[in-house]
């Protein structure tokens, strides 16, 4: 029997809400699948579209962006901006041939450790259904870092 | 979320009551539906805008239900301005059951000058005013029912009886007069063989005598003399006006057969103007609702005549505005109050309120759909 596909998911989390929430999941010993590797940024507003494209181009099977609930942003509205970016990025990655479900944005507060665990579980399930990153499937993980910066003045 | 205040709205008989209740105090504002004419002045004057005019009742030829005034028990400040300004005394404000009048008591607001007097000296106690008054119970006619003739006038009656033993007209105590009149009683002394002379006593009750002199006529010895002096030729009792019930429409004053006997002053002065050309055919809403019967349809001149023109008798209109509230066509009726007769301090609040009352009142389209 072939080994089950274990997706590699990149989590990009804001320091104040979701990262703290993920910490809380740990403090509470809530178990969830070990498929996510986390990059901590101060605010999801820092999310440069290039990060997502880079991650996909180097073979990430999914990217999970998560920040504060709407209205709770530590920097007032960074999560709003990020939400719009992600919405557009989901369309964009589709153009590149990725299923839009590979990119997801959620809003998880510092007190929602259990929800973080649920979100990870759900994301892992979704990606498992979608299968590995198509770039990996064709065995061509090259072209890394060749993604240009997307003009985003309309955000 | 707290237990108090408890705001409530309830109907007791023909009274619609709103209440603000705390543990130690209950404030009630009661609207007497029997008295309310739907004029809407309370809505105009409410400082809290806590009163709304409800839907107009069924418009019909036979009866006109007044629009219900709807009080918001939560918005109401229970200040009593509406109570004071209701021309029909339809509202009552009580605190723990006692009338609450502190606004007026402290001269925070004036009140209407209410003039409605009947001169008892010239009044003949006739029934004309009572019959003409459009409001029940406004005229209080306390005149005893005349069941016997003597009750119609006030008089004194005297009887003289000739008991002079020497006179040929001396009373014989025959008893005839006593037989026919309640005012006279004849008592005989018993005759004995020793004394066979007729003797006795004739008792007279003047209150029962109406001076008809039948005793004089019937006395066989002409020994009775009756005199009646009329002291007052007027019905007993008095006719007064209940100021709480009176609408100050002047129907009584205008119809009193004796001049200068009834003195009524209207609360408002101003004008009413009806553009009858706008009236929808067959609509008589205003006629039906007018509490003072100032609006009327003149009788048809000939059978089959359709467009009977509505008319208003300015003499009787109190400018209450009830007609405006039921009229279904915009700008058809115009009521304008120019003067409000009040006494007491004209406070700022009153001035603002009076300003609202003196605005031109005319139906708007929204009022349609009664």
């Amino acid at each position: 029997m072939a080994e089950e596909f274990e997706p590699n998911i990149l989590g990009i989390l804001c320091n104040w809400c979701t990262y703290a929430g993920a910490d809380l999941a740990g403090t509470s010993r809530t178990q969830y699948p070990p498929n996510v590797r986390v990059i901590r940024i101060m605010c999801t507003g820092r999310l440069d579209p290039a990060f997502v494209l880079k991650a996909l181009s180097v073979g990430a099977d999914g990217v999970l962006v998560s920040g504060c609930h709407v209205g709770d942003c530590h920097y007032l509205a960074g999560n709003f901006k990020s939400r719009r970016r992600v919405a557009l990025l989901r369309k964009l990655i589709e153009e590149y041939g990725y299923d839009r479900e590979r990119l997801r944005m959620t809003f998880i507060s510092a007190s929602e450790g259990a929800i973080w665990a649920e979100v990870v579980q759900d994301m892992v399930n979704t990606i498992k259904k979608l299968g590995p990153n198509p770039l990996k499937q064709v065995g061509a993980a090259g072209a890394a870092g060749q993604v240009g910066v997307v003009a985003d003045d309309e955000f | 979320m707290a237990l108090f205040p408890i705001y409530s709205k309830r109907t007791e008989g023909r009274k619609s009551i709103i209440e603000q209740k705390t543990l130690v105090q209950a404030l009630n504002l009661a609207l007497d539906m029997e008295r309310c004419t739907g004029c809407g002045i309370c809505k105009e004057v409410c400082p809290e805008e806590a009163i709304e005019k409800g839907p107009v009742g069924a418009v019909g030829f036979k009866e006109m239900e007044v629009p219900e005034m709807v009080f918001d028990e939560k918005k109401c400040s229970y200040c009593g301005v509406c109570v004071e300004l209701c021309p029909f005394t339809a509202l009552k404000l009580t605190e723990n059951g006692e009338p609450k009048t502190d606004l007026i008591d402290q001269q925070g607001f004036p009140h209407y000058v209410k003039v409605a007097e009947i001169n008892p000296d010239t009044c003949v106690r006739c029934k004309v005013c009572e019959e003409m008054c459009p409001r029940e119970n406004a005229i209080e006619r306390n005149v005893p029912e005349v069941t016997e003739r003597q009750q119609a006038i006030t008089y004194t009656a005297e009887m003289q009886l000739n008991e002079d033993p020497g006179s040929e007209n001396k009373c014989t105590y025959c008893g005839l007069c006593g037989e026919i009149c309640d005012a006279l009683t004849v008592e005989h002394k018993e005759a004995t063989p020793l004394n066979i002379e007729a003797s006795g006593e004739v008792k007279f009750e003047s209150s029962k005598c109406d001076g008809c002199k039948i005793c004089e006529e019937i006395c066989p010895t002409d020994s009775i003399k009756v005199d009646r002096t009329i002291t007052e030729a007027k019905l007993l009792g008095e006719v007064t006006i209940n100021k709480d019930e009176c609408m100050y429409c002047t129907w009584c004053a205008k119809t009193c057969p004796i001049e200068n006997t009834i003195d009524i002053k209207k609360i408002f002065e101003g004008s009413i103007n009806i553009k009858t050309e706008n009236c929808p055919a067959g609509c008589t809403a205003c006629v039906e609702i007018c509490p003072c019967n100032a609006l009327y349809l003149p009788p048809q001149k000939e059978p089959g005549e359709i467009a009977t023109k509505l008319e208003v008798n300015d003499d009787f209109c109190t400018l209450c505005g009830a007609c405006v509230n039921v009229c279904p066509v915009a700008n058809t009726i115009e009521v304008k109050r120019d003067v409000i007769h009040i006494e007491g301090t004209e406070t700022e609040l009153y001035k603002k309120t009076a300003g609202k009352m003196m605005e031109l009142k005319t139906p708007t389209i929204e009022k349609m759909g009664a």
Partner: protein
Amino acid sequence: MDEEKRIGVFICHCGTNIAGVIDVKELAEYAKTLPNVAHAQDYTYMCSTPGQAMIRDSIKEHNLNGTVVAACSPRLHEPTFRKATEEGGVNSFLFSMANIREQDTWVHMEEPEKAMEKAKDVVRMEVARASMLEPLTPKTVPVEKAALVIGAGIAGIQASLELADAGIKTYLVEKEPSIGGNMSRLDKTFPTLDCSQCILTPKMVDVERNPNIELMTYSEVEDVSGYIGNFDVTIRQKSRYVYEDKCNGCGKCQEVCPVSRPNEFDLGLMPRKAAYVPFPQAVPLKFTIDMDSCIKCDLCKGEEACGDLEAIDFDKPDELTTVKVGSIIVATGFDMYDVERKEEWGYKVFDNVVTGIEMERLISASGPTGGNIIRPSDGQKPKSVGFVLCAGSRDQDEEDGAKPYCSRVCCMYSLKHAHQLIEKIPGCVPYLFYMDIRSFGKAYEEFYYRIQNEGGKFIRGRVARITEDPITKNLTVTAEDTLLGTPVEMEVDLVVLANAVVPAESTQKVKTLLTLSNSPDGWLLEAHPKLNPMSTTTDGVFLAGMCQGPRDIPDVVAHAAAAAAAASIPIHKGSVTLEPIYAIVDQEHCGGCATCIGVCPYGATELNEVDSKLVASVNEAKCKGCGTCGSACPSGAIKMQHFTNEQIMSEIEAFAQGW
């Protein structure tokens, strides 16, 4: 980078927290294989003194110019290890932390192999990031010597007095016309039975008299900007329609006012006028006119009343004041749970079911009945009173909005009510329906004994329902005496629902203004539940009292004093060090498109003409380091320090090397 990168990796066992799940030795060996790593080792507790010394010494020994500690969450110990790095002679921003505890060994305990794999990935990513880090110098800014306290209940009062006594100018903002908060509603306080007003009023007067306190009642915070040490706060002083400087508190306006409204302070048990003070001991003793119910009859302005004082002005507008403060204390307190939603208890349906706080007013000598305890239906003295404890607390029924937590005060105030009933009404028997009596404080358990000894009856069972006799208005309480194992139905004259406490409604607004968080139960979230319960994640903002969670008066006072102490630290220090995590603009590459101007929530980016060309720049003081401008800049001219594109990209690349 000119210099060759020499990074030291330090793996923490964290006792068995980490080492019990993964093989730390293997991880250290793995770290040694990574590019730029010059040294790697493991140790039981990296955060301990020897652990920190190890970092310091290794830097020197191995000539390191970057450090990575793989341990707990950076939200816990990043400052510790930064300091250790600094002490080793390396810029503290050349340190990076790999979270292999909270986000690895603790959450993947059952899959140790995969946890190991993840730990390797995380370490690799952090090493990659550390290789790209640049030295930064923290900036220091002066601190405004003033503080703001929001809410003037006992917590706010205590915090303000502490700050003022420490010589700090304090603005105390209260939304109600008087200070005092919920504590001023209470009659006696447990377990000592001091009169609440007696112990509170002197403090309230102190607040008014203290020259360092600027009291702003009937006011609300409208806007907050700035950062620790330099907050700009806009406060709306709602119009009382009375000039506070002219009002002498004589109360004549109240006497003549013809309007009658339920008094919010008395929970509607008593009426007040449109011109009012909430309660006689109010501070400041200045009247307020409730414009919603005022009919403007002018009686209060008349000669008999305010007349010559001319303190009343119906046209007096709200005033906006802006103050500058160095730190902020939030003390917004609590409300009571809307126990009407528990329909089985019939609150607001049955006349004689009251809440705990209403009972306080009924007992209070300054309350509507002058301290005569009566039942609302007929004014009679109750001879038997049922208490429903945990009314909405310890209850997970979300449909009813009930609260899962223990409200911490209800057991004790119900005991106190029981005592007062026994004392005031001879022969009255209180029946307390409880699940657990939580008498945890000093002398609390003894108070419980006392009430038992006085004749309070305790029935261990939660009340399932209350029914009313429609004629007598007596109530039947049904519960199971769980100790007997028998259902009991008891007829009582009055029922007191000891309802839960919930965060005050106004907390939400303050939370948004100060970008705070709340825990799932709605209370404001502290920086650390044990070690820092009075701080928040927003630097310079502190929590005092119930807004952070249910607590009783002694705990509130202690918490408030702690918050005041914490808030005074930056003020007394005179300056604060800000993380140098702000954006900078490479003006050569900037095209002057102004995109960054639009996205910055703080107005920190601006456009200036430099060498006859429009270029952007970032105001360091205003920038809070979210990085939104950096990711929006179309020409890549904005660099978000410590979170640069290169640093994050290198992490992503390292992430990809895992498969």
